Protein backbone atom coordinates (compact mmCIF):
# COMPACT_ATOMS: atom_id res chain seq x y z
CA UNK A 1 0.00 0.00 0.00
CA UNK A 2 2.61 2.39 1.13
CA UNK A 3 4.68 1.53 -1.88
CA UNK A 4 1.84 2.19 -4.27
CA UNK A 5 1.34 5.53 -2.65
CA UNK A 6 4.99 6.27 -3.14
CA UNK A 7 4.74 5.31 -6.78
CA UNK A 8 1.74 7.56 -7.19
CA UNK A 9 3.59 10.47 -5.63
CA UNK A 10 6.66 10.06 -7.71
CA UNK A 11 4.99 8.99 -10.97
CA UNK A 12 6.18 11.98 -12.91
CA UNK A 13 9.73 11.58 -11.68
CA UNK A 14 9.68 7.92 -12.43
CA UNK A 15 8.44 8.44 -15.94
CA UNK A 16 11.06 11.05 -16.60
CA UNK A 17 13.81 8.87 -15.21
CA UNK A 18 12.51 6.00 -17.29
CA UNK A 19 12.75 7.99 -20.47
CA UNK A 20 16.24 9.13 -19.59
CA UNK A 21 17.28 5.61 -18.67
CA UNK A 22 15.87 4.20 -21.87
CA UNK A 23 17.45 6.93 -23.93
CA UNK A 24 20.94 6.46 -22.60
CA UNK A 25 20.79 2.69 -22.76
CA UNK A 26 19.32 2.84 -26.24
CA UNK A 27 22.06 5.14 -27.40
CA UNK A 28 24.74 3.04 -25.78
CA UNK A 29 23.39 -0.16 -27.29
CA UNK A 30 23.27 1.41 -30.69
CA UNK A 31 26.83 2.61 -30.48
CA UNK A 32 28.08 -0.60 -28.89
CA UNK A 33 26.37 -2.60 -31.61
CA UNK A 34 27.91 -0.58 -34.40
CA UNK A 35 31.37 -0.73 -32.88
CA UNK A 36 31.03 -4.29 -31.66
CA UNK A 37 29.78 -5.69 -34.93
CA UNK A 38 32.48 -3.78 -36.76
CA UNK A 39 35.14 -5.17 -34.45
CA UNK A 40 33.72 -8.64 -34.82
CA UNK A 41 33.73 -8.38 -38.56
CA UNK A 42 37.21 -7.00 -38.64
CA UNK A 43 38.68 -9.77 -36.56
CA UNK A 44 36.65 -12.96 -36.84
CA UNK A 45 38.81 -14.53 -39.49
CA UNK A 46 42.18 -14.13 -37.87
CA UNK A 47 43.01 -15.69 -34.59
CA UNK A 48 45.36 -13.17 -33.01
CA UNK A 49 43.34 -10.00 -33.54
CA UNK A 50 40.21 -11.87 -32.60
CA UNK A 51 41.60 -12.97 -29.27
CA UNK A 52 43.01 -9.55 -28.70
CA UNK A 53 39.70 -7.83 -29.24
CA UNK A 54 37.91 -10.32 -27.04
CA UNK A 55 40.48 -9.87 -24.30
CA UNK A 56 40.23 -6.10 -24.42
CA UNK A 57 36.46 -5.91 -24.51
CA UNK A 58 36.38 -8.55 -21.80
CA UNK A 59 38.70 -6.47 -19.66
CA UNK A 60 36.39 -3.51 -20.05
CA UNK A 61 33.63 -5.49 -18.46
CA UNK A 62 35.75 -6.20 -15.42
CA UNK A 63 36.68 -2.62 -14.67
CA UNK A 64 34.66 -1.70 -11.61
CA UNK A 65 32.15 0.89 -12.68
CA UNK A 66 33.03 3.22 -9.83
CA UNK A 67 36.64 3.34 -10.80
CA UNK A 68 35.73 3.78 -14.43
CA UNK A 69 33.40 6.66 -13.72
CA UNK A 70 36.04 8.44 -11.67
CA UNK A 71 38.49 7.85 -14.46
CA UNK A 72 36.08 9.30 -16.98
CA UNK A 73 35.14 12.24 -14.80
CA UNK A 74 38.22 14.16 -15.77
CA UNK A 75 37.78 13.97 -19.54
CA UNK A 76 34.00 13.67 -19.69
CA UNK A 77 32.68 15.33 -16.55
CA UNK A 78 29.43 14.52 -14.86
CA UNK A 79 26.06 13.51 -16.20
CA UNK A 80 25.40 11.48 -19.29
CA UNK A 81 28.71 11.67 -21.16
CA UNK A 82 30.74 9.45 -18.84
CA UNK A 83 27.79 7.12 -18.42
CA UNK A 84 27.29 6.75 -22.14
CA UNK A 85 30.95 6.15 -22.66
CA UNK A 86 31.16 3.58 -19.93
CA UNK A 87 28.04 1.82 -21.10
CA UNK A 88 29.44 1.51 -24.59
CA UNK A 89 32.62 0.02 -23.16
CA UNK A 90 30.69 -2.44 -21.06
CA UNK A 91 28.35 -3.30 -23.88
CA UNK A 92 30.98 -4.32 -26.40
CA UNK A 93 31.84 -7.83 -25.25
CA UNK A 94 28.53 -9.63 -25.79
CA UNK A 95 28.13 -8.03 -29.19
CA UNK A 96 31.67 -8.72 -30.28
CA UNK A 97 31.70 -12.24 -28.97
CA UNK A 98 28.42 -13.21 -30.55
CA UNK A 99 29.26 -11.51 -33.82
CA UNK A 100 32.46 -13.48 -34.04
CA UNK A 101 30.82 -16.73 -33.06
CA UNK A 102 27.90 -16.19 -35.39
CA UNK A 103 30.10 -15.40 -38.35
CA UNK A 104 32.33 -18.37 -37.73
CA UNK A 105 29.39 -20.72 -37.62
CA UNK A 106 28.18 -20.00 -41.14
CA UNK A 107 28.15 -23.08 -43.36
CA UNK A 108 31.30 -23.12 -45.51
CA UNK A 109 29.39 -24.54 -48.47
CA UNK A 110 27.22 -21.46 -48.53
CA UNK A 111 30.17 -19.13 -48.33
CA UNK A 112 31.88 -21.08 -51.02
CA UNK A 113 28.99 -20.70 -53.37
CA UNK A 114 28.87 -17.00 -52.62
CA UNK A 115 32.54 -16.78 -53.41
CA UNK A 116 31.99 -18.79 -56.50
CA UNK A 117 29.48 -16.24 -57.66
CA UNK A 118 32.01 -13.48 -57.33
CA UNK A 119 30.56 -11.72 -54.34
CA UNK A 120 33.43 -9.77 -52.93
CA UNK A 121 34.39 -9.72 -49.29
CA UNK A 122 31.98 -6.95 -48.44
CA UNK A 123 29.08 -8.35 -50.36
CA UNK A 124 29.59 -11.78 -48.90
CA UNK A 125 29.63 -10.30 -45.49
CA UNK A 126 26.62 -8.06 -45.89
CA UNK A 127 24.44 -10.31 -47.95
CA UNK A 128 25.33 -13.76 -46.81
CA UNK A 129 27.38 -14.08 -43.66
CA UNK A 130 25.80 -11.39 -41.53
CA UNK A 131 22.22 -12.34 -42.34
CA UNK A 132 23.03 -15.94 -41.54
CA UNK A 133 24.85 -15.01 -38.36
CA UNK A 134 22.13 -12.58 -37.48
CA UNK A 135 20.24 -14.64 -34.91
CA UNK A 136 23.44 -15.06 -32.94
CA UNK A 137 24.48 -11.44 -33.36
CA UNK A 138 21.17 -10.04 -32.29
CA UNK A 139 21.19 -12.32 -29.28
CA UNK A 140 24.43 -10.65 -28.31
CA UNK A 141 22.84 -7.24 -28.72
CA UNK A 142 19.94 -8.38 -26.60
CA UNK A 143 22.26 -9.52 -23.85
CA UNK A 144 24.13 -6.26 -24.07
CA UNK A 145 20.93 -4.29 -23.69
CA UNK A 146 20.00 -6.14 -20.57
CA UNK A 147 23.47 -5.82 -19.10
CA UNK A 148 23.50 -2.11 -19.81
CA UNK A 149 20.08 -1.49 -18.35
CA UNK A 150 21.53 -2.67 -15.07
CA UNK A 151 24.86 -0.91 -15.30
CA UNK A 152 23.23 2.35 -16.34
CA UNK A 153 21.78 2.54 -12.86
CA UNK A 154 25.28 2.75 -11.47
CA UNK A 155 25.78 5.82 -13.64
CA UNK A 156 24.03 7.65 -10.83
CA UNK A 157 27.37 7.89 -9.03
CA UNK A 158 28.35 10.55 -11.53
CA UNK A 159 24.84 11.91 -11.66
CA UNK A 160 24.01 10.05 -14.82
CA UNK A 161 20.44 9.94 -16.01
CA UNK A 162 17.93 7.26 -15.14
CA UNK A 163 16.67 5.14 -12.31
CA UNK A 164 20.08 4.90 -10.71
CA UNK A 165 19.45 8.12 -8.86
CA UNK A 166 16.38 6.63 -7.28
CA UNK A 167 18.19 3.47 -6.36
CA UNK A 168 21.26 5.16 -4.97
CA UNK A 169 19.33 7.76 -3.04
CA UNK A 170 17.37 4.90 -1.61
CA UNK A 171 20.56 3.09 -0.79
CA UNK A 172 21.95 6.17 0.92
CA UNK A 173 18.86 6.23 3.08
CA UNK A 174 18.71 2.58 4.05
CA UNK A 175 17.38 2.42 7.56
CA UNK A 176 14.78 5.05 6.82
CA UNK A 177 11.22 4.29 5.76
CA UNK A 178 11.52 5.57 2.20
CA UNK A 179 14.67 3.67 1.38
CA UNK A 180 13.09 0.40 0.34
CA UNK A 181 10.43 2.19 -1.61
CA UNK A 182 13.01 4.10 -3.55
CA UNK A 183 15.20 1.15 -4.33
CA UNK A 184 12.18 -0.90 -5.21
CA UNK A 185 10.72 1.80 -7.42
CA UNK A 186 13.98 2.29 -9.25
CA UNK A 187 14.40 -1.42 -9.68
CA UNK A 188 10.89 -1.86 -10.92
CA UNK A 189 11.47 0.95 -13.36
CA UNK A 190 14.47 -0.85 -14.78
CA UNK A 191 12.48 -4.05 -14.98
CA UNK A 192 9.70 -2.41 -16.90
CA UNK A 193 12.26 -1.01 -19.29
CA UNK A 194 13.81 -4.43 -19.63
CA UNK A 195 10.49 -5.93 -20.57
CA UNK A 196 9.86 -3.21 -23.10
CA UNK A 197 13.30 -3.50 -24.60
CA UNK A 198 13.01 -7.23 -24.78
CA UNK A 199 9.69 -6.97 -26.50
CA UNK A 200 11.24 -4.70 -29.05
CA UNK A 201 14.10 -7.11 -29.53
CA UNK A 202 11.84 -10.04 -29.88
CA UNK A 203 9.99 -8.20 -32.60
CA UNK A 204 13.13 -6.99 -34.27
CA UNK A 205 14.64 -10.44 -34.16
CA UNK A 206 11.57 -11.96 -35.71
CA UNK A 207 11.32 -9.31 -38.36
CA UNK A 208 14.98 -9.28 -39.26
CA UNK A 209 15.65 -13.01 -39.28
CA UNK A 210 14.86 -14.58 -42.60
CA UNK A 211 12.11 -17.18 -42.55
CA UNK A 212 14.46 -19.40 -44.45
CA UNK A 213 16.63 -19.97 -41.38
CA UNK A 214 14.02 -20.05 -38.67
Amino acid at each position, binding site marked *: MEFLEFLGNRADDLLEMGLAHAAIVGAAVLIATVIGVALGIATYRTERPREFVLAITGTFLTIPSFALFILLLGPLGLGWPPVLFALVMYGLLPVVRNTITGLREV*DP*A*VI*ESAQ*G*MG*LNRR*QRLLRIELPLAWPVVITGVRVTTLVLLGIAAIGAVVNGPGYGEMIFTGLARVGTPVAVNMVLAGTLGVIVLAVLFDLIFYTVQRLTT*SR*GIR
Partner: protein
Amino acid sequence: MTQTPQTAPEPEVMIRLENLTKRFSGTQRNAVDGLTLDIHAGEIVVLVGPSGCGKTTTMKMINRIIEPTSGRIILGGEDVTTTNADQLRRRIGYVIQQTGLFPHLTIGENVATVPKLLGWDASRIRSRVDELLSMVNMDPDEYRDRYPKQLSGGQQQRAGVARALGGDPQVMLMDEPFGAIDPITRERLQNEFLRLQSEVRKTIVFVTHDIDEAIKMGDRIAILQEGSSIAQYDTPEKILTAPANDFVRDFIGGGASLKRLSLSRVRDIELASWPTVSAADSVEQAHRVLRESDHSAVLVLDTEGRPARWVGADDLRRGAGQPLDQIGTVPQAVVESRATLSDALNELIAARYAVTVVVDQDGRHQGVVDIEQINEAIRSMRHSAVAEARTEFADGRTTP
Protein backbone atom coordinates in the same frame (compact mmCIF):
# COMPACT_ATOMS: atom_id res chain seq x y z
CA MET B 1 60.44 -34.83 -80.63
CA THR B 2 57.97 -32.07 -79.96
CA GLN B 3 58.04 -30.35 -83.31
CA THR B 4 54.52 -29.30 -84.10
CA PRO B 5 53.57 -30.05 -87.65
CA GLN B 6 51.22 -27.73 -89.45
CA THR B 7 47.81 -28.49 -88.09
CA ALA B 8 44.52 -26.65 -88.22
CA PRO B 9 44.71 -23.55 -85.99
CA GLU B 10 43.51 -24.58 -82.56
CA PRO B 11 40.75 -22.53 -81.00
CA GLU B 12 41.82 -20.02 -78.39
CA VAL B 13 42.68 -21.52 -75.01
CA MET B 14 40.31 -20.11 -72.42
CA ILE B 15 41.53 -21.88 -69.32
CA ARG B 16 45.00 -23.27 -69.04
CA LEU B 17 46.00 -25.20 -65.98
CA GLU B 18 49.72 -25.54 -65.60
CA ASN B 19 51.08 -28.16 -63.32
CA LEU B 20 48.35 -27.46 -60.81
CA THR B 21 48.88 -29.16 -57.48
CA LYS B 22 46.97 -29.20 -54.24
CA ARG B 23 47.83 -30.97 -51.05
CA PHE B 24 45.45 -30.62 -48.17
CA SER B 25 47.17 -30.22 -44.87
CA GLY B 26 47.17 -33.35 -42.86
CA THR B 27 47.01 -35.66 -45.84
CA GLN B 28 49.78 -37.71 -47.33
CA ARG B 29 48.88 -37.49 -50.96
CA ASN B 30 48.27 -34.61 -53.31
CA ALA B 31 44.55 -34.32 -53.98
CA VAL B 32 45.47 -32.83 -57.34
CA ASP B 33 48.91 -33.67 -58.56
CA GLY B 34 50.50 -31.65 -61.30
CA LEU B 35 47.46 -31.31 -63.51
CA THR B 36 48.06 -29.64 -66.85
CA LEU B 37 45.03 -29.07 -69.01
CA ASP B 38 43.95 -26.69 -71.77
CA ILE B 39 40.30 -25.82 -72.10
CA HIS B 40 39.37 -24.14 -75.33
CA ALA B 41 37.04 -21.21 -75.54
CA GLY B 42 33.48 -22.14 -76.35
CA GLU B 43 33.86 -25.76 -75.48
CA ILE B 44 32.23 -27.93 -72.89
CA VAL B 45 34.86 -29.98 -71.15
CA VAL B 46 33.53 -32.76 -68.98
CA LEU B 47 35.59 -34.05 -66.11
CA VAL B 48 34.85 -37.59 -65.10
CA GLY B 49 36.73 -39.82 -62.76
CA PRO B 50 36.50 -41.91 -59.66
CA SER B 51 35.01 -40.35 -56.58
CA GLY B 52 37.72 -38.48 -54.70
CA CYS B 53 40.04 -38.14 -57.66
CA GLY B 54 40.17 -34.36 -57.32
CA LYS B 55 37.54 -33.02 -59.69
CA THR B 56 35.93 -30.67 -57.20
CA THR B 57 39.30 -29.55 -55.96
CA THR B 58 40.34 -28.76 -59.50
CA MET B 59 37.18 -26.76 -60.12
CA LYS B 60 37.64 -24.82 -56.92
CA MET B 61 41.19 -24.02 -57.84
CA ILE B 62 40.09 -22.61 -61.16
CA ASN B 63 38.03 -19.97 -59.40
CA ARG B 64 40.48 -19.84 -56.53
CA ILE B 65 38.12 -20.90 -53.79
CA ILE B 66 40.93 -23.27 -52.99
CA GLU B 67 44.38 -21.83 -53.46
CA PRO B 68 46.69 -24.17 -55.34
CA THR B 69 49.71 -25.43 -53.49
CA SER B 70 51.64 -24.86 -56.67
CA GLY B 71 51.06 -24.35 -60.35
CA ARG B 72 49.40 -21.69 -62.42
CA ILE B 73 45.96 -20.92 -63.75
CA ILE B 74 45.74 -18.87 -66.92
CA LEU B 75 42.36 -17.51 -67.86
CA GLY B 76 42.00 -15.93 -71.28
CA GLY B 77 45.75 -15.50 -71.51
CA GLU B 78 46.03 -13.78 -68.17
CA ASP B 79 47.69 -15.41 -65.20
CA VAL B 80 45.00 -15.27 -62.55
CA THR B 81 46.86 -17.21 -59.90
CA THR B 82 47.46 -14.02 -58.01
CA THR B 83 44.92 -11.50 -59.24
CA ASN B 84 41.87 -10.38 -57.38
CA ALA B 85 39.84 -13.45 -56.74
CA ASP B 86 36.45 -11.73 -56.62
CA GLN B 87 36.94 -10.14 -60.00
CA LEU B 88 37.93 -13.49 -61.33
CA ARG B 89 34.95 -15.25 -59.84
CA ARG B 90 32.44 -12.84 -61.19
CA ARG B 91 33.49 -13.87 -64.66
CA ILE B 92 32.92 -17.48 -63.78
CA GLY B 93 29.61 -19.07 -62.95
CA TYR B 94 29.87 -21.84 -60.40
CA VAL B 95 27.43 -24.58 -59.59
CA ILE B 96 28.66 -26.05 -56.34
CA GLN B 97 28.38 -29.78 -55.70
CA GLN B 98 26.35 -29.30 -52.50
CA THR B 99 24.04 -26.70 -54.14
CA GLY B 100 24.99 -24.20 -51.41
CA LEU B 101 21.83 -22.17 -51.78
CA PHE B 102 21.67 -19.24 -49.40
CA PRO B 103 19.25 -20.51 -46.78
CA HIS B 104 18.10 -17.08 -45.68
CA LEU B 105 17.11 -15.94 -49.14
CA THR B 106 14.14 -17.07 -51.18
CA ILE B 107 14.74 -18.96 -54.38
CA GLY B 108 14.01 -15.79 -56.32
CA GLU B 109 16.54 -13.84 -54.31
CA ASN B 110 19.07 -16.61 -54.64
CA VAL B 111 18.78 -16.57 -58.38
CA ALA B 112 18.84 -12.78 -58.46
CA THR B 113 22.13 -12.59 -56.60
CA VAL B 114 24.48 -11.98 -59.47
CA PRO B 115 22.12 -9.78 -61.52
CA LYS B 116 21.79 -7.62 -58.42
CA LEU B 117 25.54 -7.52 -58.09
CA LEU B 118 25.70 -6.33 -61.63
CA GLY B 119 23.30 -3.56 -60.78
CA TRP B 120 20.47 -4.51 -63.09
CA ASP B 121 17.17 -2.76 -62.54
CA ALA B 122 14.39 -4.46 -60.63
CA SER B 123 12.14 -5.34 -63.54
CA ARG B 124 14.99 -6.76 -65.56
CA ILE B 125 16.08 -8.85 -62.61
CA ARG B 126 12.58 -10.09 -62.09
CA SER B 127 12.11 -11.20 -65.62
CA ARG B 128 15.55 -12.77 -65.65
CA VAL B 129 14.73 -14.74 -62.52
CA ASP B 130 11.49 -15.98 -64.01
CA GLU B 131 13.21 -16.88 -67.20
CA LEU B 132 15.91 -18.84 -65.41
CA LEU B 133 13.47 -20.65 -63.17
CA SER B 134 11.37 -21.63 -66.12
CA MET B 135 14.45 -22.74 -67.89
CA VAL B 136 15.25 -25.19 -65.12
CA ASN B 137 11.68 -26.34 -65.24
CA MET B 138 10.44 -24.70 -62.06
CA ASP B 139 7.26 -22.67 -62.13
CA PRO B 140 8.39 -19.20 -61.04
CA ASP B 141 5.09 -18.38 -59.41
CA GLU B 142 5.21 -21.46 -57.27
CA TYR B 143 8.85 -21.44 -56.30
CA ARG B 144 10.03 -17.86 -56.46
CA ASP B 145 9.14 -17.08 -52.89
CA ARG B 146 10.02 -20.37 -51.26
CA TYR B 147 13.03 -20.85 -49.11
CA PRO B 148 15.61 -23.49 -50.01
CA LYS B 149 14.59 -25.78 -47.18
CA GLN B 150 11.12 -25.95 -48.68
CA LEU B 151 12.38 -27.55 -51.87
CA SER B 152 13.10 -31.13 -52.75
CA GLY B 153 16.68 -32.16 -53.41
CA GLY B 154 16.36 -31.95 -57.16
CA GLN B 155 14.59 -28.64 -56.98
CA GLN B 156 17.39 -27.22 -54.89
CA GLN B 157 19.90 -28.42 -57.39
CA ARG B 158 18.02 -26.83 -60.24
CA ALA B 159 17.74 -23.58 -58.35
CA GLY B 160 21.51 -23.74 -57.94
CA VAL B 161 21.97 -24.11 -61.66
CA ALA B 162 19.61 -21.22 -62.35
CA ARG B 163 21.52 -19.09 -59.91
CA ALA B 164 24.85 -19.81 -61.52
CA LEU B 165 23.47 -18.77 -64.89
CA GLY B 166 22.15 -15.49 -63.51
CA GLY B 167 24.91 -13.20 -64.66
CA ASP B 168 25.35 -14.93 -67.98
CA PRO B 169 29.02 -15.63 -67.31
CA GLN B 170 31.33 -16.56 -70.12
CA VAL B 171 32.89 -19.36 -68.17
CA MET B 172 30.93 -21.86 -66.14
CA LEU B 173 32.11 -24.44 -63.66
CA MET B 174 29.43 -27.00 -62.98
CA ASP B 175 30.06 -29.63 -60.36
CA GLU B 176 27.56 -32.46 -60.86
CA PRO B 177 24.82 -30.01 -61.65
CA PHE B 178 22.22 -32.56 -62.67
CA GLY B 179 23.06 -35.36 -60.27
CA ALA B 180 19.82 -35.27 -58.30
CA ILE B 181 17.45 -34.64 -61.13
CA ASP B 182 15.12 -37.13 -62.72
CA PRO B 183 15.87 -38.29 -66.26
CA ILE B 184 13.12 -36.35 -67.99
CA THR B 185 13.96 -33.05 -66.38
CA ARG B 186 17.60 -33.81 -66.76
CA GLU B 187 17.30 -34.43 -70.44
CA ARG B 188 15.31 -31.26 -70.84
CA LEU B 189 18.00 -29.34 -68.98
CA GLN B 190 20.75 -30.95 -70.99
CA ASN B 191 19.05 -30.06 -74.23
CA GLU B 192 18.36 -26.57 -73.05
CA PHE B 193 21.99 -26.23 -72.16
CA LEU B 194 23.18 -27.52 -75.46
CA ARG B 195 20.77 -25.22 -77.26
CA LEU B 196 22.03 -22.24 -75.29
CA GLN B 197 25.55 -23.35 -75.87
CA SER B 198 25.03 -23.47 -79.61
CA GLU B 199 23.88 -19.83 -79.48
CA VAL B 200 26.32 -18.27 -77.03
CA ARG B 201 29.37 -20.38 -76.85
CA LYS B 202 30.38 -20.38 -73.23
CA THR B 203 33.36 -22.21 -71.92
CA ILE B 204 32.07 -24.82 -69.53
CA VAL B 205 33.80 -27.23 -67.23
CA PHE B 206 31.33 -29.86 -66.22
CA VAL B 207 31.69 -32.67 -63.73
CA THR B 208 29.43 -35.66 -63.91
CA HIS B 209 29.38 -39.28 -62.94
CA ASP B 210 26.99 -40.16 -65.69
CA ILE B 211 28.99 -41.32 -68.67
CA ASP B 212 26.02 -40.89 -70.96
CA GLU B 213 25.73 -37.32 -69.82
CA ALA B 214 29.43 -36.80 -70.36
CA ILE B 215 29.14 -38.17 -73.87
CA LYS B 216 26.13 -36.10 -74.63
CA MET B 217 27.33 -32.80 -73.18
CA GLY B 218 31.05 -32.88 -73.73
CA ASP B 219 32.97 -31.43 -76.61
CA ARG B 220 35.83 -33.09 -74.87
CA ILE B 221 36.00 -35.43 -71.95
CA ALA B 222 38.85 -35.58 -69.50
CA ILE B 223 38.96 -38.89 -67.74
CA LEU B 224 40.84 -38.40 -64.54
CA GLN B 225 42.54 -40.83 -62.26
CA GLU B 226 43.50 -40.50 -58.62
CA GLY B 227 45.19 -37.14 -58.10
CA SER B 228 43.52 -35.72 -61.18
CA SER B 229 46.07 -37.29 -63.47
CA ILE B 230 44.67 -37.44 -66.94
CA ALA B 231 43.95 -40.90 -68.27
CA GLN B 232 42.57 -39.56 -71.52
CA TYR B 233 41.53 -36.14 -72.75
CA ASP B 234 39.71 -36.40 -75.98
CA THR B 235 36.45 -36.08 -77.83
CA PRO B 236 33.69 -38.44 -76.73
CA GLU B 237 33.90 -40.26 -80.04
CA LYS B 238 37.56 -41.02 -79.64
CA ILE B 239 37.19 -42.01 -76.03
CA LEU B 240 34.48 -44.46 -76.90
CA THR B 241 36.09 -45.89 -79.94
CA ALA B 242 39.72 -45.72 -78.95
CA PRO B 243 40.07 -45.76 -75.19
CA ALA B 244 43.65 -44.92 -74.28
CA ASN B 245 44.03 -47.67 -71.72
CA ASP B 246 42.27 -50.18 -69.56
CA PHE B 247 41.37 -47.59 -66.97
CA VAL B 248 39.41 -45.65 -69.55
CA ARG B 249 37.87 -48.80 -70.95
CA ASP B 250 36.75 -49.80 -67.48
CA PHE B 251 35.51 -46.38 -66.73
CA ILE B 252 33.24 -46.02 -69.70
CA GLY B 253 32.06 -49.44 -68.74
CA GLY B 254 30.11 -52.01 -70.63
CA GLY B 255 28.20 -50.95 -73.66
CA ALA B 256 30.82 -48.64 -75.10
CA SER B 257 29.76 -49.53 -78.61
CA LEU B 258 26.16 -48.98 -77.77
CA LYS B 259 27.08 -45.62 -76.27
CA ARG B 260 29.12 -44.75 -79.27
CA LEU B 261 26.02 -45.15 -81.38
CA SER B 262 24.34 -42.30 -79.59
CA LEU B 263 26.95 -39.97 -81.00
CA SER B 264 26.22 -40.72 -84.65
CA ARG B 265 23.09 -39.93 -86.48
CA VAL B 266 21.21 -41.94 -88.98
CA ARG B 267 21.72 -39.30 -91.65
CA ASP B 268 25.47 -39.76 -91.33
CA ILE B 269 25.47 -43.33 -92.57
CA GLU B 270 24.53 -44.84 -95.80
CA LEU B 271 21.08 -46.36 -95.57
CA ALA B 272 20.16 -49.73 -96.88
CA SER B 273 17.43 -49.90 -99.41
CA TRP B 274 14.31 -51.97 -99.00
CA PRO B 275 11.81 -52.92 -101.67
CA THR B 276 8.91 -50.50 -101.66
CA VAL B 277 5.64 -50.26 -103.49
CA SER B 278 3.17 -47.48 -103.64
CA ALA B 279 -0.19 -47.82 -101.94
CA ALA B 280 -1.74 -47.28 -105.33
CA ASP B 281 0.06 -50.24 -106.78
CA SER B 282 -1.68 -53.51 -107.29
CA VAL B 283 -1.21 -56.58 -105.21
CA GLU B 284 0.41 -58.25 -108.18
CA GLN B 285 2.88 -55.47 -108.46
CA ALA B 286 3.74 -56.00 -104.83
CA HIS B 287 4.05 -59.72 -105.42
CA ARG B 288 6.45 -59.10 -108.16
CA VAL B 289 8.61 -56.72 -106.20
CA LEU B 290 8.71 -59.12 -103.33
CA ARG B 291 9.69 -61.98 -105.46
CA GLU B 292 12.48 -60.02 -107.13
CA SER B 293 14.00 -59.03 -103.80
CA ASP B 294 15.45 -61.37 -101.22
CA HIS B 295 13.34 -59.86 -98.45
CA SER B 296 10.23 -61.29 -96.94
CA ALA B 297 8.13 -58.15 -97.00
CA VAL B 298 7.73 -54.97 -98.96
CA LEU B 299 7.19 -51.55 -97.53
CA VAL B 300 4.07 -49.83 -98.80
CA LEU B 301 4.39 -46.07 -99.15
CA ASP B 302 1.44 -43.76 -99.25
CA THR B 303 1.00 -41.15 -101.93
CA GLU B 304 3.30 -38.74 -100.12
CA GLY B 305 5.98 -41.37 -99.99
CA ARG B 306 5.47 -42.04 -96.29
CA PRO B 307 5.76 -45.60 -94.97
CA ALA B 308 2.24 -46.94 -94.55
CA ARG B 309 2.44 -50.70 -94.17
CA TRP B 310 4.63 -53.70 -94.00
CA VAL B 311 3.24 -56.25 -96.34
CA GLY B 312 4.65 -59.77 -96.42
CA ALA B 313 3.86 -62.64 -98.78
CA ASP B 314 1.32 -64.00 -96.31
CA ASP B 315 -0.41 -60.68 -96.07
CA LEU B 316 -0.65 -60.47 -99.80
CA ARG B 317 -2.18 -63.85 -99.95
CA ARG B 318 -4.65 -63.29 -97.18
CA GLY B 319 -5.56 -59.75 -98.06
CA ALA B 320 -6.05 -60.38 -101.72
CA GLY B 321 -8.45 -57.88 -103.25
CA GLN B 322 -7.91 -55.23 -100.61
CA PRO B 323 -5.86 -52.12 -101.29
CA LEU B 324 -2.23 -52.48 -100.24
CA ASP B 325 -2.55 -49.93 -97.48
CA GLN B 326 -5.29 -51.91 -95.78
CA ILE B 327 -3.33 -55.08 -95.30
CA GLY B 328 -0.19 -56.05 -93.45
CA THR B 329 0.97 -54.20 -90.35
CA VAL B 330 1.67 -50.59 -89.53
CA PRO B 331 5.41 -49.96 -89.26
CA GLN B 332 6.35 -49.26 -85.63
CA ALA B 333 10.06 -48.88 -85.98
CA VAL B 334 10.33 -45.54 -87.74
CA VAL B 335 12.86 -42.86 -86.96
CA GLU B 336 13.72 -39.55 -88.50
CA SER B 337 17.06 -39.20 -90.16
CA ARG B 338 18.32 -36.94 -87.37
CA ALA B 339 17.77 -39.72 -84.83
CA THR B 340 20.87 -41.32 -83.42
CA LEU B 341 22.05 -44.72 -84.42
CA SER B 342 21.26 -45.74 -80.90
CA ASP B 343 17.61 -44.84 -81.41
CA ALA B 344 17.65 -46.73 -84.67
CA LEU B 345 19.15 -49.78 -83.04
CA ASN B 346 16.66 -49.61 -80.20
CA GLU B 347 13.82 -49.80 -82.69
CA LEU B 348 15.51 -52.31 -84.87
CA ILE B 349 16.01 -54.95 -82.27
CA ALA B 350 12.33 -55.03 -81.44
CA ALA B 351 11.05 -54.51 -84.93
CA ARG B 352 9.57 -57.00 -87.27
CA TYR B 353 12.12 -57.96 -89.87
CA ALA B 354 14.77 -56.43 -87.52
CA VAL B 355 14.87 -53.26 -89.51
CA THR B 356 14.20 -49.62 -88.77
CA VAL B 357 12.59 -47.43 -91.35
CA VAL B 358 14.13 -44.02 -91.79
CA VAL B 359 12.07 -41.03 -92.85
CA ASP B 360 12.87 -37.39 -93.43
CA GLN B 361 11.35 -34.46 -91.58
CA ASP B 362 8.18 -34.72 -93.58
CA GLY B 363 7.91 -38.40 -92.89
CA ARG B 364 8.96 -39.52 -96.35
CA HIS B 365 10.73 -42.81 -96.66
CA GLN B 366 14.48 -42.52 -96.96
CA GLY B 367 15.69 -46.04 -96.59
CA VAL B 368 16.18 -48.48 -93.77
CA VAL B 369 18.77 -49.28 -91.13
CA ASP B 370 19.49 -52.85 -90.36
CA ILE B 371 22.15 -54.47 -88.29
CA GLU B 372 24.59 -54.43 -91.20
CA GLN B 373 24.55 -50.67 -91.36
CA ILE B 374 25.07 -50.35 -87.67
CA ASN B 375 27.84 -52.87 -87.70
CA GLU B 376 29.55 -51.16 -90.56
CA ALA B 377 29.23 -47.74 -88.94
CA ILE B 378 30.78 -48.90 -85.71
CA ARG B 379 33.60 -50.69 -87.42
CA SER B 380 34.49 -47.74 -89.57
CA MET B 381 34.45 -45.43 -86.55
CA ARG B 382 36.84 -47.80 -84.86
CA HIS B 383 39.17 -47.91 -87.77
CA SER B 384 39.36 -44.23 -88.22
CA ALA B 385 39.85 -43.63 -84.52
CA VAL B 386 42.65 -46.12 -84.37
CA ALA B 387 44.23 -44.73 -87.50
CA GLU B 388 44.06 -41.23 -86.12
CA ALA B 389 45.52 -42.28 -82.83
CA ARG B 390 48.38 -43.91 -84.69
CA THR B 391 49.06 -40.78 -86.67
CA GLU B 392 49.08 -38.68 -83.60
CA PHE B 393 51.40 -41.04 -81.92
CA ALA B 394 53.71 -41.00 -84.91
CA ASP B 395 53.63 -37.20 -84.95
CA GLY B 396 54.83 -37.20 -81.41
CA ARG B 397 51.93 -35.10 -80.33
CA THR B 398 50.59 -35.61 -76.91
CA THR B 399 46.90 -35.56 -76.34
CA PRO B 400 45.69 -32.00 -76.51
